[in-house]
């Protein structure tokens, strides 16, 4: 059991900066996910923690010890990879016991620890079987059992589930989360899959091109993304973005799009105007579930639009809606019926809209209940 601290870590490969000045504090007993697209630097970061790569700058601190100069095998960290190889001729028990036998631990102690680990993973009834007699999920559990039986200070995992089929992945996701909840050990889990990060992580660090974008708990990172990159990588379908013009008109602030106008009276939005109060370009962001489609004009103020295409998924329907020259994605109930070209009206959860800077893509305003926008009639 240990916390992991990264201080100003930078790693370059020739001219490419794989990891740029990243500082992170992973708490003892935390399930910490590192999320990013391929090439974001997440695996490099993991390899730096485990000691397979040496940072060019910065330090790695595990527990209370700086470990930059310590060999990987002495860091007492267990790493679980995508490909989990078991010894085909050894029983489940011996597979799990293997790392302990190498450490020449006494039989009695080995038995105690293997049984305990196997109980956590619900494979204690499989001890006498060999790997070829196991299901895919059971084999994964045995491999994980072998990795955790050493009782290291922390567990690092690099996309351990990405080779599995969808069903098994789901089963293992639940099993890993349950295991970590019971063990209360530090897990660092690297993934490109937002569902894995949202579902397992106590906190998520989002990485892009070697830069840390945001570190937060799943709910916060989903609801209050720091920038358009984070808003896009989390959520499926991802957040919608529309380029708008922010300007002052008749004493209020207006966010103008070809298809609609929003009003705001919030001071913070005022401050987004350019110097001298002139108009500024902004990007309006909103999630597909925060828009409601009406087949006839509702009593409340709404925006007329047109169905572009519908995508039924069974449990829900994605409706692509044409707004001016843009197409947005909206989540509708499974029984939604509509034809391309059909007129519809949309309303929005106006307290869940976001504004992003047009050039930096940073979020400049999250609307709240108090600072909700209003749709101009």
């Amino acid at each position, binding site marked *: 059991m240990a916390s992991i601290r990264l201080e100003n870590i930078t790693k370059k490969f020739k001219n490419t900066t794989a990891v740029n000045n990243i500082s992170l504090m992973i708490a003892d007993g935390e399930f910490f996910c590192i999320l990013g697209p391929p090439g974001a630097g997440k695996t490099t970061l993991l390899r730096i923690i485990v000691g397979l790569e040496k940072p060019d700058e910065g330090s790695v601190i595990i527990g209370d010890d700086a470990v930059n100069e310590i060999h990987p095998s002495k860091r007492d960290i267990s790493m679980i990879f995508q490909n989990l190889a078991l010894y085909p001729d050894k029983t489940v028990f011996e597979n799990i016991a293997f790392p302990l036998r190498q450490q020449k631990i006494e039989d009695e102690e080995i038995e105690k620890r293997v049984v305990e680990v196997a109980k956590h993973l619900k494979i204690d009834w499989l001890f006498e079987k060999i790997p070829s007699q196991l299901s895919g999920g059971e084999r994964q559990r045995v491999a994980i059992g072998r990795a955790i039986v050493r009782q290291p200070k922390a567990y690092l995992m690099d996309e351990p589930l990405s080779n599995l089929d*969808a069903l098994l992945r789901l089963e293992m996701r639940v099993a890993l989360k349950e295991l970590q909840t019971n063990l209360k050990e530090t897990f660092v889990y690297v993934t490109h899959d937002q569902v894995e990060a949202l579902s397992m992580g106590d906190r998520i660090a989002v990485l892009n091109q070697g830069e840390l974008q945001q570190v937060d708990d799943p709910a916060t990172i989903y609801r209050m993304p720091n920038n358009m990159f984070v808003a896009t990588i989390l959520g499926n379908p991802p957040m919608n973005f529309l380029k708008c013009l922010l300007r002052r008109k008749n004493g209020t602030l207006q966010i103008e799009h070809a298809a609609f106008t929003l009003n705001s009276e919030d001071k913070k939005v005022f401050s987004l105007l350019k110097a001298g109060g002139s108009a500024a370009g902004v990007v309006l962001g909103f999630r597909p579930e925060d828009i409601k489609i009406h087949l006839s004009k509702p009593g409340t103020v709404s925006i007329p639009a047109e169905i572009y295409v519908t995508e039924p998924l069974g449990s829900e329907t*994605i409706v692509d809606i044409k707004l001016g020259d843009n197409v947005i994605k909206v989540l509708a109930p499974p029984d939604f019926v509509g034809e391309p070209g059909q007129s519809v009206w949309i309303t929005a959860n106006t307290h869940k809209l976001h504004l992003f800077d047009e050039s930096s893509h940073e979020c400049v305003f999250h609307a709240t209940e108090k600072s909700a926008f209003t749709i101009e009639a």
Partner: protein
Amino acid sequence: MANIVLDKLVKRFGKQVAVNELSLEIKDREFVAILGPSGCGKTTTMNMISGLLKPDAGTVRFDGTVMNNIPPGKRGVGFMFQNYAVFTYLSVYDNIAFGLRIRKMETEQIDKEVQEVARLLQIRHLLSMPASNLSINDMQKVALARSMVEKPQIFLLDEPLSNLDAALRSVMRAELKKIQQELGQTTVYVTHDQVEAMSLADRIAVMNFAVLQQYDAPHNIYNRPKNLFVANFIGSPTINFFEGRYRGGEFNLKDFSAGKMSVSKENKKQVDDSIRGEDIVLGIRPEHLKVGSSRDGVSGLKAKIVSVEPLGSKTIVYMHPDGNPSAILKSSMDSDFKPKIGEMTSLIINEKNLYLFDKKSADLVMRFGS
């Protein structure tokens, strides 16, 4: 325009039967997805439609004409694969015009066709760019434009979106569907991704182990799956299954300590008539299995909450049924639902949402509420 008929198609590779007696009718202008896990025979089927593979038995007919002996180039089909071939040393324009030039079409006509297809795919501004400078998304559109400009009667797409990241995939999905609706080419789309099949297709052919399992509209595939395989393959998270026995108006479900569930009076006769053997499997989709307290639909079944996935737009709750800690149940709840890990909870099941399968044959024998 063309309809496609596959009549008892068989394809073997050595002793392995890749496609077994497959019959399918694809209507003119229809968008059909062939869906299944890897190795189910979907790409083999596609290759027999295109002519890249010859069936060992059965026929492929386009508009009533047998195509078995017609080479791929003469079938009037356009392809698009996962690995889109774009010539990176040519401009976007030359890439799209490539096939037309080979056919010695007049320059003026070529220009008209290229401009038209570029307008449709919204890549007119890219025409003079070298293809090597394109983003993956635009590269994909150029590959699509190259196939489309040939105006094939039939479009064959083999996992065309699987190289794209999730955000692009969801944009391209809508674009593909829109384009197909506008052009009206008969389209066959091979995928292992049930979301793509559901969202794009007019009808879905679900395959497993070389055999067609069900051929139906997405709504029916989801709501009336023909068997356990189809029910399990479609939907995410996957459907919940409860194994058990049925006797005298009562299900006895084996994963629960108190697993008795009575059938309502109005449904009892239909269940009695539908049932084939005592051993049954009940199915219920995660969005219909609710947890917590409610006056209606409390089933008496109990489960322990073991994991929660806050996915933003909804929250998935995972549970072990109280009689079997290695089984997993999934419930899709609103995003503001805050469950406690480790808590024992009641399952809320509305009878009208249940699917009843015969365990031995794995077939759906009754759909409650319809």
